[in-house]
């Protein structure tokens, strides 16, 4: 007899194990749901992990207010279909309460502010574990991230002082005020996520598929027309066939020109592409260690 699991099934089994471990080891876990494909995958796996019971923890969307309309419509339908409870933590609220300050400039990004709202949301709801869809292949600073990532009482990550993580024994012990970030998709690559979404026939926002949209080319990044950015001198919107590789803050999430309007075509495109997923995000270009600096400060 040959007892073998395909690599996607192995990744699925591992992620479900980590999600269940989170529910078992923590009192108040939460799943961070951004509406992007990774958190959609994560929510999908969470549903499987506890089926036929409901997911025993809520979802939290850290809402920058700078969304594509489609993201919010999709979020509400997807989560209510699976019977999940949603909490929205709003960056606008953090700004209104004076806890965060809007960036100045032609396309103020709220990505940095998300960390403040996220930590605030975690604190207010007394969450002690936040499940996120981050993958180690996304960026080099993430390559060393643990499944169970300890955060001190300021929500900070200490990359040089991480707990060793062996076998599948996850240490979630912590002091009061500290919390954990948990990353069940650590070992997945972008391609794995797509193949899994395809295999499982998971619904997705249509932003991911090629469509016509007005965009402006700013420093090599294609930004979609939206109410939160203003054109600079000499810039104009033009209609192109595009799709998004990630869905984040509308002011800095770049689109790519693409004809891929099905998952298999997207997979083909990724397999031949020469730019990493985050290459389309204006916020990572700022410096070589941009991601690491943001992570230390409590970013996802």
């Amino acid at each position, binding site marked *: 007899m040959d007892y073998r699991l395909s690599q996607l099934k192995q990744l699925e089994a591992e992620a479900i194990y980590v999600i269940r471990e989170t529910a078992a080891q923590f009192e108040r876990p939460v799943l961070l749901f951004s509406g992007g494909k990774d958190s959609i995958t994560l929510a999908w796996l969470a549903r499987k992990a506890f089926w036929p019971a409901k997911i025993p923890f809520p979802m939290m969307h850290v809402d920058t207010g700078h969304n594509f309309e489609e993201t919010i419509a999709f979020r509400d339908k997807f989560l209510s279909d699976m019977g999940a409870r949603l909490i929205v933590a709003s960056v606008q609220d953090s700004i209104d309460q004076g806890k965060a300050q809007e960036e100045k400039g032609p396309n103020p990004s709220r990505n940095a502010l998300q960390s403040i709202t996220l930590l605030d949301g975690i604190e207010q709801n007394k969450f002690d574990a936040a499940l996120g869809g981050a993958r180690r*292949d996304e960026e080099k600073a993430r390559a*060393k991230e643990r499944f169970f990532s300890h955060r001190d009482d300021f929500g900070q990550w200490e990359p040089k002082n991480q707990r060793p993580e062996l076998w599948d024994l996850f240490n979630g012990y912590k002091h009061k005020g500290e919390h954990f970030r948990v990353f069940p998709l650590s070992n997945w690559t972008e391609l794995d996520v797509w193949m899994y979404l395809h295999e499982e026939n998971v619904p997705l926002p249509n932003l991911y598929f090629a469509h016509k949209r007005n965009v402006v080319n700013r420093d090599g990044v294609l930004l979609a027309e939206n109410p939160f950015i203003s054109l600079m001198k000499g810039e104009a919107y033009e209609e192109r066939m595009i799709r998004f590789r990630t869905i984040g803050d509308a002011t800095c999430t770049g689109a790519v020109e693409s004809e891929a309007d099905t998952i298999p075509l997207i997979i083909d495109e990724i397999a031949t592409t020469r730019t990493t997923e985050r290459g389309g995000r204006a916020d990572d270009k700022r410096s070589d260690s941009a991601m690491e600096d943001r992570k230390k400060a409590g970013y996802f």
Partner: protein
Amino acid sequence: MDLLRFSTAGSVDDGKSTLIGRLLYDTKTVFQDQLDDIERTSAARGDDYLDLALLTDGLKAEREQGITIDVAYRYFATPRRKFILADTPGHIQYTRNMVTGASTVNLAIILIDARHGVVEQTRRHSFIASLLGIKHLAVCVNKMDLVDYSEAQFRKVVEEYEKFASKLQIPDIRYIPISALRGDNVVDKSDSMPWYEGSALLYTLETVHVGNDLNHVDSRFPVQYVIRPQSDEYPDYRGYAGRVSGGVFKPGDEVVVLPSGFTSKIKSIDTPEGPLTEAYAPMSVTMTLEDNIDISRGDMIAKPDNQPRMTQDIDLMLCWMNDKPLQPNGKYRIKHTSRDARCVVKEVKYKVDINSLHRVEGDASMGLNDIGRVHIRTTVPLFNDPYTRNRGTGSVILIDEFTNETVAAGMIL
């Protein structure tokens, strides 16, 4: 598609980063913007070649010091397999990182500089691989270009290694002469070494058979979570969720629940897509039983005629991972499968000099990176198997009760 988890270890300058960089580069896992990045960094540092090693150095502090200190994970795929690579540092002060990286892999790459042959670090890395139960080794004799691709030199290194490896418990060892810098025998077979009849490293990684590495004999199911929907649709459903850690479970199988010792039959193995006819490692499933037995997290479901040991006095090989040394008679939290308990370390029987593999007796202290045989007593019984028989039910971690840090990793004897 299939999955292979493997690790690399090598001493500084053996060419580990270059080798990994080459695997990523030649399997087209390096994207244009990453390439731009390392070109920029390489140029800024005044390197006169594109430093592929930069692809694998993650954190800022390490980039500045130019060394790898933690375990970094890399991903790449070929049409045959997906690979997860645990890239670990080779210095003695990072033994714990090597142990961490080696804990989940199927295969380890041991790098040897063709000019220097087997050195202290080679022995250390191989010992750790053996201790962690890795069944496959790819011993890569690197920098063959610097010894004129000499077969005699390769043979010499292989013989030296074989002599030492006879003391280890690794069933499958392959030797490959390579040049990471020039790419000989890494992804493609080299023309410079026509005398070498084996395959290139990547082909070895793609084809090594790991199907039998998991235990499919001794049925073990640690209960991780109890599922009780209490909904109109499933008013009385009681499912036991967990990850199969050994053997095969089928509906109708007679099972025993530990520690209670009650027996029952498996009623169903459920998934949202419908019931399964069998479950085996490493599947995550939910099972229901015919009888209503009180079962909670930390319990274990096994077969009546093949049960794990149920012991509180346990001998283990322990690797100490914390700056704060082991306290004599110290009390620690212990994690084993889905079970949490406390334990006291009663005795350090001996330590292992991981360079010579000799036992050091009469020294009861254990500090960072020490490996030794200890005896512990736990507050509740652990349902365990020898580590060599089952990694899942044979491994534990110890946790400091005050700092909550993971201080040691143990392999049950």
